[in-house]
C-alpha cells in the first residue's frame, strides 16, 4: 500500500519505486522494506511509520530547496494525511479493541480448512500463561513448650511451582487452569475449568473448581497472603487448597461479587482428629455419591475493603460409611466470615470459620477410632493479622517492607461426640511475628517466627523463611 501511495504522489511507476526504494528513502533498510511491502509486526510498523514521517520532512525540505529555484510550493499534504491514516490503523490494531470477523463454515470449506484450523482466522484469542511458586525453609525448636526435647531439626522444601495456562476461545468462552508441582515431585491439577460469560454479571463455570471459601483458598499466590505459612485455620478448618469437580455460576453486580458451585463432596473416610483436610479428593477419581454446595459472596463498600462469607455443605459418607448395616451421610458443613482492608500501607485481615460434622460418632465407629483419636462434631478456628508497609511513607520507592503480626487459635476438636474426649494438642494458639520484603510486586521474601502452644503443652516454635514469586 505504501508503494502505491509514494508512486501516486510522486507520479512515478511502481517499478521505479521498487528499483529505487533503498536509495530513494535513505539508508534505513526497514523503511525500504515498508516501501517494498515487506510484512512486519505492530511495533515494527509503528517504528516504520515514525521513520516515514521523518523521511517526509526531509522530502519536504528537499522539495522546498528545489521549489525555491522554480518558485513552486511543495505539497506533501496528501502523503502526510495518508501516513496519519496508517498510524491510526496501527494504533487501533495494537489496542486489542479491533476484532477480525470469524471465518464462516462456507468460507472454511472454500479455504479447505478443518474446524480447528479455521479458528485461527477468528476473533482475538490465544494462550495466556502465568504462574507462581515458593520455597519454604522451616526450622523447628529443639524442645517443645514443656521443655521436652523434640530432636527435630529443619526442612527446606520447594513447596510449590505452579503454571497457569489459559486459552481464550472467543469473547464468551475461555479455559483457565493451574497445574501444580508440590514438594518438587507431586504433580496435580489445582483447577481446570471452562468459563462461559453469559452476561456481564453472570458466568457459568464447569470443571475442577477451587472451592470459594476463606481468604487463601482462591488467592494463594505467595505475594498476596501475609506470612511464610498459610494460617492454620485455612489449612485445618477450611482445608486449603480445596478443589473438586463441579459446575456453578459466578459474577458481580455493583459492589457484590459471588460464586456458587455444586461439587463432589469430601471423603469422610479420611477425616481425623486433626481435621477434615485428608477428606479432600482433589478431583481425582473422586467419589461422588454425595455432592456438596459451596458458595461465597463479598461486598466491597469502598475500594481496598471487602467483607463476606462462605458456605460449604454436603455429605461426606460417599456411600462407604456403614455401621451395623446402616449407611451414614456424614453431612459436613463449613461456614466462614471474613474481612480484609488495605488502606495505604495498612493491611488488616480477619477470618472465623466453624465446621459441623453430622454422624461423627458413626464415622468414628466406622474408622475404628477411639477416645481422643476420634473425629470431632465441631471444629473452629480464627485469626486476625495486621501488617504495615513502612516504605509506603517513602514517596519515591516501589519497594515494600511490611512487618506483620498474626494471632490465631484453632481447635479441631471443639466438640466431640458422646463417648469421645478431646486430645490436648488439638487446641492450639499461634502467635506469628515477621516481616516481608517485596523488591518488586512479583517477588517476596518473608521471615517470621511462630510461637505455638497447645493444651497438651507439646507445641513447638519455629522459624520460617519463604521466597515466593508470581508472574
Amino acid at each position, binding site marked *: 500500500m505504501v508503494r502505491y501511495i509514494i508512486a501516486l504522489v510522486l507520479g512515478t511507476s511502481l517499478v521505479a519505486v521498487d528499483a529505487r526504494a533503498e536509495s530513494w528513502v535513505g539508508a534505513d533498510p526497514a523503511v525500504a522494506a515498508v516501501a517494498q511491502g515487506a510484512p512486519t509486526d505492530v511495533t515494527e510498523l509503528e517504528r516504520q511509520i515514525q521513520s516515514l*514521517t521523518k523521511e517526509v520532512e526531509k522530502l519536504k525540505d528537499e522539495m522546498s530547496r528545489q521549489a525555491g529555484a522554480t518558485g513552486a510550493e511543495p505539497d506533501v499534504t496528501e502523503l502526510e494525511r495518508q501516513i*496519519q491514516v496508517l498510524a491510526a490503523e496501527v*494504533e487501533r490494531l495494537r489496542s*486489542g479493541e479491533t476484532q477480525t470477523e470469524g471465518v464462516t463454515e462456507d468460507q472454511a470449506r472454500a479455504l479447505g480448512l478443518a474446524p480447528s484450523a479455521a479458528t485461527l482466522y477468528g476473533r482475538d484469542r490465544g494462550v495466556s500463561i502465568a504462574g507462581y511458586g515458593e520455597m519454604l525453609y522451616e526450622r523447628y525448636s529443639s524442645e517443645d513448650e514443656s521443655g521436652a526435647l523434640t530432636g527435630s531439626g529443619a526442612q527446606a522444601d520447594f513447596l510449590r511451582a505452579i503454571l497457569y495456562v489459559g486459552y481464550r476461545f472467543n469473547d464468551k468462552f475461555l479455559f483457565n487452569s493451574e497445574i501444580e508441582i508440590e514438594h518438587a515431585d507431586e504433580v496435580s491439577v489445582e483447577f481446570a475449568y471452562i468459563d462461559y460469560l453469559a452476561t456481564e*454479571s453472570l458466568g457459568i463455570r464447569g470443571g475442577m473448581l477451587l472451592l470459594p471459601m476463606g481468604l487463601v483458598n482462591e488467592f494463594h499466590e505467595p505475594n498476596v497472603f501475609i506470612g511464610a505459612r498459610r494460617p492454620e485455620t485455612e489449612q485445618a478448618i477450611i482445608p486449603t487448597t480445596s478443589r473438586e469437580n463441579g459446575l456453578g455460576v459466578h459474577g*458481580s453486580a455493583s459492589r457484590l461479587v*459471588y460464586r456458587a458451585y455444586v461439587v463432589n463432596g469430601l471423603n469422610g473416610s479420611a477425616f481425623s482428629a486433626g481435621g477434615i483436610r485428608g477428606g479432600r479428593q482433589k478431583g481425582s477419581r473422586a467419589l461422588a455419591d454425595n455432592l456438596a454446595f459451596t458458595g461465597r459472596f463479598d461486598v466491597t463498600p469502598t*475500594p*481496598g475493603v471487602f467483607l463476606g462469607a462462605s458456605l460449604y455443605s454436603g455429605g461426606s459418607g460417599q456411600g462407604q460409611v456403614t455401621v451395623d448395616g446402616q449407611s451414614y451421610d456424614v453431612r459436613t458443613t463449613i461456614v466462614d466470615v471474613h474481612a480484609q482492608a488495605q488502606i495505604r500501607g495498612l493491611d488488616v485481615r480477619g477470618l472465623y470459620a466453624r465446621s459441623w460434622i453430622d454422624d461423627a460418632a458413626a464415622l468414628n465407629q466406622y474408622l475404628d477410632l477411639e477416645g481422643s483419636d476420634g473425629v470431632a462434631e465441631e471444629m473452629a478456628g480464627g485469626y486476625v493479622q495486621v501488617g504495615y508497609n513502612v516504605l509506603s511513607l517513602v514517596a519515591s520507592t*516501589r519497594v515494600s517492607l511490611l512487618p506483620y503480626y498474626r494471632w490465631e487459635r484453632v481447635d479441631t476438636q471443639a466438640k466431640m461426640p458422646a463417648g469421645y474426649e478431646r486430645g490436648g494438642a488439638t487446641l492450639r494458639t499461634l502467635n506469628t511475628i515477621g516481616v516481608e520484603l517485596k523488591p518488586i510486586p512479583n517477588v517476596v521474601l518473608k521471615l517470621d517466627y511462630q510461637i505455638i502452644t497447645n493444651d497438651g503443652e507439646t507445641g513447638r516454635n519455629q522459624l520460617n523463611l519463604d521466597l515466593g514469586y508470581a508472574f
Partner: protein
Amino acid sequence: MVLLTVAALCSPVVAGDLLTREEALAACYPGAAIEAQRVFLTADQLEKVAALSGSEVPSALVARYVARTTDAVVGRAYVDTHVVRTKRESLLISLTPDGRVRRIDVTAFLEPREYLASEPWRAQYRDRELNDDLGLQRAIRPIAGATLTAHATNAAVRRVLAIDRVLARAGEGP
C-alpha cells in the same frame, strides 16, 4: 439460589463494563466536538515521560483525543495499551483541561474478566494529578485477587499524565 436472588436485586450498574472509545468520550465530554490525533513522541519526550511516570513507555505513538466546545478545550483523552498478565488491556484515560484525571474507561481487556478492575476501583483516580502519592498502597488502594491489573492500571495512569504534561510543556498541547 439465595446468591442469585441477591445478585438480581443489586444495582443494574455492573462492574467492569467495556465501552468503545466513542461511547466513553461522549459520556465524559457530552456535547463536545472530539478531534482524534496521533502524536509521535520524540526521543527527548520519551525520556521525560519515563522519568516523570517512573515506568517504561512502550511506544512513541500516542492516540490522543481533544474535546472542544465553541469556547474552549474541555479536556484531553489518551489511549494506553499495555499487558496485564500476558494479554493486553486498553484504557481510555480522560483528563480535565488542567491535566487531572476525569475518568478511566476500559476499551479492551483480553485477560479473564475476573481480573478486570471495577468502576468503583477506577473511580479512585478521579481528580488525581501526577505526584508521588499516586500509587498503590498510597493514594490508591489495591484490588484483592487482581494485583497485576492494579499495577498495570496505575502505571498507565501515571504514564498518560506524564505524557500530557510533557506535551503541554513542549507547546504541543491544544
